[in-house]
């Protein structure tokens, strides 16, 4: 049995507790197929096995708590780790830190749609000291939109959700690379302006 099948069995057996736990772990950084799960849960809701709105609420809370865990960890211990790895002395790291802080809100918002890039951004956001209010607000808004989209798609395609999970994973990767491209382009633009 693959990991998705195992997770779906737990969702069918323990419903919202399993959903919350699995999505929380995936938000932290555990590589679980959260998008395929969301599609399946949307389908379960369309069959009347789960309540759509309650599932959405559980997903939003789990994702947000997971993101805050990452952010809190690096906010608390990140500086010590960077000092230990001597990253704080590296010029490239200093530049990157400054640039990420400048684009914090948009980066946090966009990366919620970019799969595992979201967890990496959480760690970075804590590390570069993105203000808590900014992080929380952007995280929460995007964490409502993203699961709503995935659950909604699962609800619409219903029993055929399996046909779409690969496409959704690929779409997530496209968004992730697009976000990276967008951030890099903005950084490049600012660096070019400075050197002119």
């Amino acid at each position, binding site marked *: *049995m693959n990991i998705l099948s195992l997770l779906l069995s737990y969702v069918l057996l323990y419903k919202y507790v399993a959903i919350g736990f699995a999505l929380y772990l995936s938000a932290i950084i555990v590589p679980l197929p959260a998008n395929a799960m969301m599609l399946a849960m949307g389908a379960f809701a369309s069959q009347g096995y789960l309540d759509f709105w309650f599932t959405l609420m559980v997903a939003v809370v789990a994702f947000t708590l997971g993101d805050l865990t990452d952010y809190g960890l690096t906010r608390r211990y990140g500086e010590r780790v960077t000092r230990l790895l001597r990253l704080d002395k590296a010029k490239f790291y200093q530049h990157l830190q400054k640039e990420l802080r400048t684009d914090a809100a948009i980066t946090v918002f966009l990366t919620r749609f970019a799969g595992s890039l979201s967890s990496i951004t959480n760690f970075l956001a804590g590390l570069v000291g993105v203000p808590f209010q900014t992080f929380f607000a952007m995280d929460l808004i995007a964490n409502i939109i993203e699961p709503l989209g995935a659950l909604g798609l699962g609800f619409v395609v219903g029993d055929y959700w399996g046909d779409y999970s690969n496409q959704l994973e690929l779409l997530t990767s496209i968004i992730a690379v697009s976000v990276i491209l967008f951030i890099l382009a903005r950084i490049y633009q600012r660096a070019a302006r400075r050197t002119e």
Partner: protein
Amino acid sequence: MTTSNSSENDFRKRIGYALIVAAVLLLVLMVFFFWQVRSLRHNQSLHMREFRLSHLLEGRTPLPVSETGIIRAWMTFEYVNRIFALPPEHLRTTLAITDARYPRLTLADYAKEEKVDQAVFLTKVADAVRSYLTPTSSTSTPRP
């Protein structure tokens, strides 16, 4: 000033390289994505259903007999009962299940514990569902 400028140039150069790599990766991913969507269309497996807000609030109707092929090992008996609107005891009676955890038990776990081949067991479950949903079948349980 010169050191600062050279470090700035170096930073810009690295970001430029990263930009090129990311752009190429994006292009490759997009080609794959469109290719997959095309093959989905080609196989005529785009099954978008009509979306109504009332469905979100009230749930859907049970699956018909033609959909028994969707039964998978990770499903629980409870879930199978629910999606096909079977009476809670139909599968237990038809498949002679004695496990106390029924219906909160996955088909895979039951097959494993009973040392039955999973594929064979799934076929039996599908037959049991069909026997209920097809009223003319001799093995069908009378509907309430």
